[in-house]
């Protein structure tokens, strides 16, 4: 609960202040208007350009992300031209052979001679 005397004091103060604000001359008001326009222009110049830049960057990044996701999901998994080939390769690997013998060139010569021979091995 405010004191009535305080309320009257506040009212008189507001009246005096309002009167002063309303009584500002034209030159002062003109300077205020110019200052206001400069402030509004300053708020629009830098920040809006910054915002626009960030939003464009964000939009581009989002679009790139979407495109990448679509590409990754849409692309079929890598497939072998022939599934059987893979099995035969595995069989070769699993052959129980002497690797030192395979690496020896004379072994291939002997193998060729044995194949060309009469078959009396």
């Amino acid at each position, binding site marked *: 609960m405010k004191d009535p005397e305080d309320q009257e004091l*506040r009212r008189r103060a507001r009246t005096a202040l309002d009167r*002063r*604000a309303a009584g*500002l001359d034209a030159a002062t008001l003109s300077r205020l208007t110019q200052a206001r326009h400069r402030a509004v222009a300053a708020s629009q110049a830098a920040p809006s350009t910054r915002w626009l830049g960030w939003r464009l960057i964000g939009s581009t990044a989002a679009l790139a992300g979407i495109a990448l996701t679509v590409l990754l999901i849409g692309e079929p998994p890598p497939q072998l031209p022939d599934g059987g080939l893979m099995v035969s390769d595995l069989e070769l690997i699993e052959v129980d052979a002497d690797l030192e013998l395979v690496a020896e060139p004379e072994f291939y010569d002997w193998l060729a001679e044995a194949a060309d021979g009469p078959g009396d091995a």
Partner: protein
Amino acid sequence: MTFVKITLVYVISSDDTSEKSLERFLAGVERRALVTAELATGSLDEALDIVQDSMLAFARRYAGKPQGQWAPLFHRVLQNRIRDWHRRGAVQRRLFGWLSAPSNDAPADSPDPIQVAPDPAGHSPEALVAQQHAGDVMLDAIAALPLRQREAFMLRVWEGLDVSGTAQAMGCSSGSVKTHLSRALAALRTRLQDYRE
């Protein structure tokens, strides 16, 4: 492409709206800000510089904030500028009061023609002079308040900010706002007891 177009339209239209809102807000507070700075500095020119700096700083830093926060933020910027002005050694200027200094030097501070013109309501010149004098005495008393008391008084009584908004603008606690306001009212009562209407 459509997404980018929609984004651009949104950005441009929202900037346009915020520009108008900012213009409206500043137009609504600039006169009171000027009188507040004038009471604090005792000089209309200094007050204009302070208000111009405050509007620029506010627009650059806080225009993107929600509009509900604009009033306390603007007054915080304004009060900081006024305090900076005082810190720069303007105590001497305060001693001369805001009414005595500019009357002869600055034509811009001459009496407003509207106030000098005959009152359509029929008030007599004597009544107007008495009213004007009472107003001047009131303004003089407010100008003579200590800095923090005047801040609390102006923000609460004239700007109509609530206690929390005033505390935000002054950068202090709500309790301090109440204390400063109470002391300001007491000081004004004492000063104005000879000028009761």
